[in-house]
């Protein structure tokens, strides 16, 4: 009854209830999650959500946040940006004090229109497109996914000794793949490296051989991979191996997911990739041990993104002192939180009003040894 009256009055009382309602009436702290359970982001949204659920359970096991239990409200956007925005509104109406976005990049973008209007804090712990914080001046949005520009800068800093002059760039036609390619190209050109050829492998193609031929003809010093679709990336690797090419491959963080170790078996040796995950880091070892104990399953880096997202938000809520959206917004901006992801000693922070929180020096470079993801060989951009 009470709820119904409130819903009927909500448009009249407007923002007053939106701000005051959750703080007064609930005894749990509600964190909303917009995920993709049926669409193209599912391979990444699913493990990220598992990490989020594990983090919330961990928090609650240790007494919650500010003495209250954390309650997750999970909504499926079906991989559709317009539904995604509706789901963000649902979470706002349901009293979520924070929204975590782990669906597609365009979905996160479209939710921002809602969170900006409803003044509700929102963060994506894993989307990496540089444009998410630049397309809309939304003070309620943060991003801790490692940006494309950081990925390329880290890769280049590692490859500095090789003195690259002309390189090839390959990507796919997914929204994130295109975004990463854009910022990879910008990063390469900024370093004075010529992109001799840029190729796209479209989703659903049956071979990457023509693209690889074109790259071979350009005879680059190295190949940079910015794509994020696993089957298409495997096709690229197969074409590269078939052609017997020798120039090195430097890949975006997409090659850091462990699925490649089975689906691209035999193709990976020697490939360099950038990652936000260092298995030797004490926090990571602790996280893996705890996760295995709690769920019996082995986590990997995508779980870590989701886990860090919840923990960072919980930290902000603690410092805010109350689950109040405005106070949380202020607290977010002064975040200094060391989590599972990132190089040893890295902490997420949003200094000087920045809303991208992944430390530019926080990524690591790793190399495939056979089909195993090897240890960290390089850290940061120095």
């Amino acid at each position: 009854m009470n709820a119904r009256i409130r819903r009927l009055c909500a448009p009249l009382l407007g923002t007053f209830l939106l701000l005051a309602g959750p703080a007064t009436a609930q005894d749990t702290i509600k964190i909303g999650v917009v995920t993709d359970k049926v669409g193209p982001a599912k391979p990444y949204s699913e493990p990220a959500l598992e990490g989020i659920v594990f983090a919330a359970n961990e928090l609650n096991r240790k007494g919650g946040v500010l003495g209250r239990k954390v309650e997750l409200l999970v909504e499926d956007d079906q991989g559709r940006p317009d539904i995604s925005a509706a789901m963000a509104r649902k979470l706002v109406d349901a009293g979520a004090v924070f929204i975590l976005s782990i669906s597609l990049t365009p979905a996160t973008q479209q939710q921002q229109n809602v969170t900006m209007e409803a003044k509700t804090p929102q963060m994506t712990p894993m989307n990496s497109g540089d444009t998410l914080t630049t397309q809309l001046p939304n003070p309620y949005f943060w991003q801790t996914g490692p940006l494309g520009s950081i990925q390329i800068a880290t890769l280049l800093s590692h490859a500095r000794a090789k003195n690259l002059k002309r390189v090839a760039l390959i990507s796919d036609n997914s929204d994130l793949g295109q975004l990463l390619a854009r910022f990879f190209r910008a990063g390469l050109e900024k370093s004075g490296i010529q992109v001799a050829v840029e190729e796209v492998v479209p989703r659903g193609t049956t071979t990457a051989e023509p693209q690889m031929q074109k790259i071979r003809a350009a005879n680059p010093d190295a190949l940079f991979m910015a794509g994020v679709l696993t089957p298409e990336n495997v096709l690229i690797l197969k074409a590269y191996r078939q052609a017997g090419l020798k120039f090195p491959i430097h890949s975006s963080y997409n090659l850091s997911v462990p699925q490649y170790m089975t689906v691209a078996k035999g193709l990976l040796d020697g490939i360099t990739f950038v990652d936000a995950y260092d298995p030797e880091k004490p926090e990571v070892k602790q996280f893996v041990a705890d996760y295995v104990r709690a769920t019996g399953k082995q986590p990997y880096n995508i779980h870590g993104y989701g886990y860090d997202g919840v923990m960072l938000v919980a930290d902000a809520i603690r410092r805010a002192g109350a689950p109040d959206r405005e106070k949380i917004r202020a607290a977010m901006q002064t975040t200094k939180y060391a989590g599972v992801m990132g190089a040893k000693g890295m902490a997420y922070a949003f200094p000087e009003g920045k809303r991208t929180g992944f430390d530019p020096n926080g990524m690591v470079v790793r190399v495939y040894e056979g089909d195993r993801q090897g240890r960290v060989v390089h850290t940061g951009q120095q």
Partner: protein
Amino acid sequence: MQDFLELAVSATASGCIYGLIALAYLLMIRPTGIINFAVGEWAMVGAFGGFLLLSKAEWPYPVGMAAVLGFMLLVGWATERVAVRPLVERGAPLLAPILALLGMLVVFRESISLAFGPDPHQVPYPFGFGRLELGPLAGPYQSFFIIGATLVVFAAAWLFFERTLWGKCFEAVAIHRRAAALVGIDLGRVTALSFAAGGAAAGLGGLLVSANVSAHYLMGVPLAIQGFTALVIGGVGRVEGALLGGLLLAFAEQFTVRYAPLPAGYAQGVPLIMLMLFLLLRPTGLLAAREARA
């Protein structure tokens, strides 16, 4: 020149895959007029069959392949039973089974997605990942295997339609359904068989391509679209048209990417424009259907 010939091998292999999917469409369209967009999902089912039997259970390739094809015959037959026959018997308009099969497309995809999860799975190569060099022609073993297997299938299909009584029955139904029924051809059985054969052709295409693209739940729709484009280019009239259309499409796609001075993103638009032009200028496809002879 070496690039050109290598690319020809690669495009021929892709074209054969498109051709197999186009053949699956054609086997069903000829006698029934039904366009079955679920062929892409059939290919996906074939690919996952390959993953289960060849990667997980590690059966020998020929046995696993035979089992997958047998199973796909069954899938095609069952699909016809469930989603097509009741509508045909009721005398529903032609669009009804086409739409019911679109619904089946969703059912197949979501079942696979629930059963196997969202991650792609590796399907093995029958002859490994090596490279074969036949004089100036060079390419992966798999490309040659795809080409060989496809040629066998198309030769068999051609012989079936040209040389066997059953094949003549199919043609008769295609040319004039009611007249064929009058001379004693069992329309129900022809329809069921055409769907079973379509299932096997699509499943084979899926199994062959999945060694390259991996088995994953979103692979169906692109294959369905590529196969249909091939069919439109080649024409629904003749079996050879499906292969010819597939080859033309694949050559256009891959040679555009390789040689056309276009930004990479726009290269994807070329086959689409080609499809539109073909439809508008030559809607019957390259090879016209055989007419009834007096």
